[in-house]
């Protein structure tokens, strides 16, 4: 009941740290507090009949972790498994989930007040998964709404 007000939304301090990474060519970020760890791609077990964005499951120290190809889920194209992709293990409400991304980038401090709305042309499947866009001096970072990404459709 009261937990809600503390996590996620920066109320007093507006600056949060973003873990940034590439999905395809797009630079995206998420609240670093959501990230449990980042792994190289380990040996996975395929799950026949799983949704197409689920690459498989792997054994993370005795826990079964579902690996989601973030590129595919967001409609940004399949992540190339040969280019040494990384797994971002996030601790979501339904247990641990791995998000496969093409490349890991820096940790960026971001002032959430400067967060801008997703651009109007970012529509369709991509738009709904982004909370907004953050501008640094050199680049734009799309801020992922992790819970939305991990929520099930329908």
């Amino acid at each position: 009941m009261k937990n809600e007000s503390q996590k996620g939304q920066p109320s007093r301090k507006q600056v949060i740290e973003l873990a940034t990474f590439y999905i395809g060519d797009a630079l995206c970020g998420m609240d670093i507090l959501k990230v449990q760890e980042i792994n190289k791609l380990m040996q996975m077990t395929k799950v026949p009949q799983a949704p197409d964005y689920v690459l498989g499951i792997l054994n993370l120290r005795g826990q079964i972790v579902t690996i989601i190809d973030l590129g595919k889920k967001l409609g940004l194209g399949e992540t190339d498994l040969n280019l040494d992709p990384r797994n971002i293990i996030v601790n979501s409400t339904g247990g641990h989930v791995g998000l496969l991304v093409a490349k890991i980038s820096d940790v960026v401090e971001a002032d959430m007040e400067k967060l801008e709305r997703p651009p109007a042309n970012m529509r369709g499947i991509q738009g709904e998964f982004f909370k907004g866009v953050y501008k640094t001096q050199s680049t734009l970072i799309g801020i992922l709404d992790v819970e939305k990404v991990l929520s099930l459709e329908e």
Partner: protein
Amino acid sequence: MEFEDDEILQGFIEESLEHLADIENDLLTIEEGGANIDEELVNKVFRAAHSIKGGAGFMGLTSIQELSHASENVLGLIRSKKLIPNPEIINVLLLASDQLRQMIEDVQNSNEVDISAHLDPLNSIFDGTFAQAAAAEPKKKATAPKKKAAEPVVEIEPEPEPTVAEPEPEPELAEEEDVLDQEDEEIEEEEDIPATVVSNPQRIQDTDQAKKSTPATKVETSIRVNVSLLDSLMTLAGELVLSRNQLLQTIGTDDFRNAETVGQRIDLITSELQEAIMLTRMQPIGNVFNKFPRVVRDLSKKLAKKIDLTIVGKDVELDKTIIEAINDPLTHLIRNSVDHGIEMPAERKKKGKPETGLVILKAYHEAGQVVIEIRDDGKGIDGDALAASAVAKGLLTADQIKVMSEKEKVNLIFLPGFSTAAKVTDVSGRGVGMDVVKTNLDQLGGHVDILSEVGLGTTISIKLPLTLAIIPCQIIMTGDERYAIPQVNLEELLRIPANQVKERVERVGDAEVVRLRGNLLPLIRLSDVIGLDRTFWDDKDQTFKEDRREMISDRRSKASPLFGTSDKSQSEQQQRPNRSVIDRRYAASSALNIVVVSTGAMKYGLVVDRLLDSEEIVIKPLGRHLQQCKGYAGATIMGDGRIALILDVANLARMSNLTSLDGSDRATEIAHSMEEAIKAKKDKQALLIFRSSETEQFAVPLNQVERIEKIKASDIEMLGGKRVMKYRGGSLSLIRVDDLAMVQPLADYDNLLVIVFNVAKHNVGLLAIGPIDALEITADIDDITLKQPGIMGSLIIDTHTTMLVNIFELVQNLFPDWFDSIEVFDAVETTDGSAPTILLAEDSNFFRNQVKGYMTEAGYEVIEAEDGQIAWDLLQQNREVISMVITDIEMPNMDGFQFTKTIRSDPRFTGLPVIALTTLAAEEDVAKGIAVGVNEYHLKLDKEKLMTSVHHFMKQRY
């Protein structure tokens, strides 16, 4: 309603529910005691109510507070012996505690609940107006509420003791524990552990009870664990850390021996740790059992029955998840026993039983499982009544019922859509009970069995695994991934060698079935259900290869003897002409691996690529993104760290649209066509195949063979010009096929076979060489081409021309004197001096000629008929002369049974002997034959017995 502090509220809820769980049973005990008030017990209940009231007041839960207060008032009167508890009063208190529980489970809305229905009777009890008002309850409502404001002050304050002990035993414990920790940890074991051990189990079960009944509030499930258990866990964890350090050190030094020791140590600790952790999940079954006294009490009251419930084995421990899951099925079963099992008191008296019925609920360990028994001494389940009802409902056919055992009939109660109660009551018997019970228990890996004796009672026993967390599984492989199939679903593993695949796998429409010991089992390919490419394991290459067969039963020639080939598959086959790789149909390694699994009423074969070991695995849940994949029950981590999915066999069946009905329908259908096919073949002959020289193959009817012996050529002795060998303390005459028949001489081998026959009451051995084989064939016998003395005829077996040896003829020619000693086959003369006439009905030329040969040889006249119909016509035309009928069983137009029946139903032929001939005397055929009026049964080629029998009947007649 919002609460400031979640944790305190949570604590209150858990604690209150614990109290309530106790209250219920205690109230029942108080009720039993009646005027004999057990002060301590009443005190306990009183304190519990008081604690709830105190807590509720603190939290601002006014309704709960009021109700618990009113209850407390009444209890106070009982305690001070101002009030004698009678069932009505206890009932009111019980109802109030139920209401309290409901409100506490839904704390947020508790203040809005209308509790006046409970308050009024409580208050009227308290102010003494209840006794006379018990009947006219509603009236009281107006007077009661006034009182409640005033009373509490007076009653409550003088009770300081409950306030102290408010959170009941818990604080003591906690304190003790604290003190200990601070003082001296080493002394702790001796004195304190026993205390905790005693008090803890009780509480563990209570929390659980609370948990179970609180689905409304989204409580983070917690479990109370025995402190000593936690301590041992701590110790083990410490050990593990030590071992890890050792291991790390050893790895640095390359010391293999030491590494081994450390490895063993870690192995040991891990298994101990695993066991200890499992124990934390174990809970006494009493948690579930404890609520049944109330259930039985309420029900029996409602039904006006007298019932005692005896509970045995409350301490038996089971995994928490199982405990939670068996609650509903058990309740259902208990209600059934009370409602349907136990009779009304009057009825019981009439039957000479005690008026009070007995229901026994018992839990005990057996063979690594827990057995729960629900036994009643009621009227029992009438299997026949069930069966009749099942037929009436169209669930089964009368034919199916006939072959069912009593036990199977009783188990019909588990059929979906079955209700045994003649009339539906609101207690049980809505027709959706027992099958749900069974399904629930099946899901737990449990097993239900019913034993019932009409008039004496019913025992339902449930077998449950101790835990669900670790289960034995069969590991299989398909498409390069491993999968686990829980052993509870596993019936057997079946491997069909490549050369038998086409015989044993058949299909009806697009359904494939395998023949397994006479039954037909629907087949599902795992790769098809979960949408993988079909592969098969090539043992030679140790790799998986693509499988190109459409159907398992595909064969080189797609024409099945039973079913027409569909044009579609043929044209598809033509569409892929470039089979450059070896097609599976031609590959030698195409053996089929089938896992026969069962789930509930369904049983099917799962076709997999490889069968691996069986292993004990730990079930891990799949993430929410995979919940939609219904085919898996979870996943597990294998020894090499990789994951294997656990298959849910029930859902796999559903996914491939295999319902039990479908499966059995198809099976019946195909079984029927098989039968037809076999019938069409007729006259199966069991033959023993052997050789005498290497190039010539012989056969004798298998039923003439007594036994087969392996001997050395040196065992054979020539004595008095006769070949003999020692055999069972006597000497056995040995003959060879070439002694009489013009065939190649016996091969000159050291190792020979002797096929022993019994002819004319003598044993005789036929020398032969291998390979020998026994098979059933239906080939036509050619009795012209190769016929000669000693050879009856020939037939083609597997492209080999095989000569059928007439052992009788051989013996007759080689040892003619044997026949002198036994009854001479003199033709019996009829009264007018002519030979008696026999009507012989037989469709096979070969056998007809054979049998006719025997008869004419013995001096009988024979009239031949090719089938039953012709025989009947002939019999009518020649009824004056025919004195005996010999008939085959399987014949076109009219079979032997029908023919015999026709004869027996015609008074003109009274007393006419009928001998039936068959190639294989199956017992049911014999029985059927005798039923229609056959006098005797004989095997076609057993000349001796047949002739003896013919003579016997003829002598009787003349």
